[in-house]
């Protein structure tokens, strides 16, 4: 098992923390993991992205050019990373604000309306966990939910642990988006 994933969006959408929760969940599932952020001034208002690799084996390069799964949360990220999905791979994107849709027929594409789903939950901060739910449902590697919860506990500071049920609810909501 090896999943090479990139999550890309605007700074402030929770891209990096979603990557961290994903990486921690993988760690709780006894996988080798790497989390490699783009860091620097481009994170302020511009695009932010993070590469997460989950694998049974030791991971070589933490930096990649082709991905099994691309998650794009704005138009710029979609334009930049849609061509970088490996043939047979998965592209998940939030339809909110997207005017140019991807046109590849060699990959599986899941357009999701994560923003609306988040508004239904009533807490905009849960946005990244809705997206995470869609990812968990779409990935061939089935990460057990109990390890995702452990990952949440590990990556959130203790004072935020009361928000874990909300995060679980958001993940479930994201899963449902994909089942539709």
């Amino acid at each position: 098992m090896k999943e090479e994933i990139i999550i890309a969006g605007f700074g402030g959408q929770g891209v990096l923390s979603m990557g961290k929760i994903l990486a921690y969940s993988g760690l709780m599932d006894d996988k080798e993991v790497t989390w490699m952020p783009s860091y620097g001034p481009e994170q302020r208002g511009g695009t932010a992205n993070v590469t997460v690799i989950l694998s049974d084996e030791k991971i070589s390069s933490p930096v990649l050019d082709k991905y099994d799964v691309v998650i794009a949360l704005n138009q710029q990220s979609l334009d930049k990373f849609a061509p970088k999905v490996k043939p047979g791979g998965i592209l998940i994107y939030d339809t909110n604000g997207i005017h140019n849709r991807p046109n590849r027929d060699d990959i599986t594409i899941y357009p999701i309306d994560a923003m609306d789903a988040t508004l239904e939950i009533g807490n905009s901060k849960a946005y990244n966990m809705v997206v995470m739910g869609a990812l968990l449902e779409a990935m061939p590697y089935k990460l057990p939910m109990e390890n995702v919860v452990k990952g949440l506990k590990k990556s959130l500071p203790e004072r935020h642990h009361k928000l874990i049920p909300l995060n679980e609810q958001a993940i479930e909501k994201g899963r449902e988006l994909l089942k539709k």
Partner: protein
Amino acid sequence: MKEEVRLMKGNEAIAHAAIRYGCDGYFGYPITPQSEVLETLEELMPWETTGMVVLQAESEVAAINMVYGGAATGKAVMTSSSSPGVSLKQEGISYIAAASLPALVLNVMRGGPGLGTIQPSQADYFQATKGGGHGDYHLIVLAPSTVQEMVDFVGLGFDLAFKYCNPVMILADGIVGQMMEKVVLPEQRPRRTDEQIREQCPWAANGRKDGRKRNVITSLELESARMEVINHKLQAKYREIEKNETRWEEIDVDGADYLIVAFGSIARICDKARELAAEKGIKVGIIRPITLWPFPTEAVEKAAQGKKGVLCVELNAGQMIEDVRLAVHDRLPVEHFGRLGGIIPSPEEVVEAIETKLIGK
């Protein structure tokens, strides 16, 4: 604190490792991409647990001179910075090397020259391995490629520093500093007691007792005949380090047609390139120097034997390649591939470089 598996950034790992390996003092000044070292130490507040001192100095120059002072008393002390900040520390590093003191310096390299960029680079190879400061001296230079090695090299670094009374540099880059990986933190090693320091460091300026001779720590010796003796002693020590402490890792070197030499996180990008090349039927082996000084000259020479060409991949315009060329004596083509200014090459670009620079020739 027991051994523990965690997920953390390389910079955070350095901070945890410093505490766990019984470091006595950290003196630093913030600079991207390594500010998390100081931040994590401030957050962990080791002064309340192990008694380790953590201090944000007023400048890089102050920080390295605090390290000089701490090291002179036999304490296990360290500093960290990134390229422009490490340039500022060079005078102090030369003094520490000249005075034969143990100390640990971390450089999380960013793109230069000058203030450059905050993105990853390996352009301080010359500075780290060929001096950096003035005079005939060497640091032991360790190049981590994983977050785990960031942890391990703090322990190894202090061990080597005290074994040889010599400053050790961990030469990392922005990738390994900023990425998160699984790490196993070691069990807490207690800080040494004053008695243990007296025993381990009879040279230390930590208070004269019981008729012991006065210990003077200095890098100054105006009498040339004596200064030459000091230089010869340093050189003898360096030869000893070269003999005992050269470290490297090899991946699929036997049976390969081409050899990549790369260090730090770039060696891992090359490892992925090795996998991609194999899919195209190109057999590539990798040798990763772990100690950049002493450089694994003989190992590189041996690994290159029978190969059709060598590609030196580094995030600079060609620095380590000089040591690689010296190692293989121009017996086979040695080419360089690198990206500059903070750009990280993809594994695909490395494969392309093998194809165009070695095979296409």
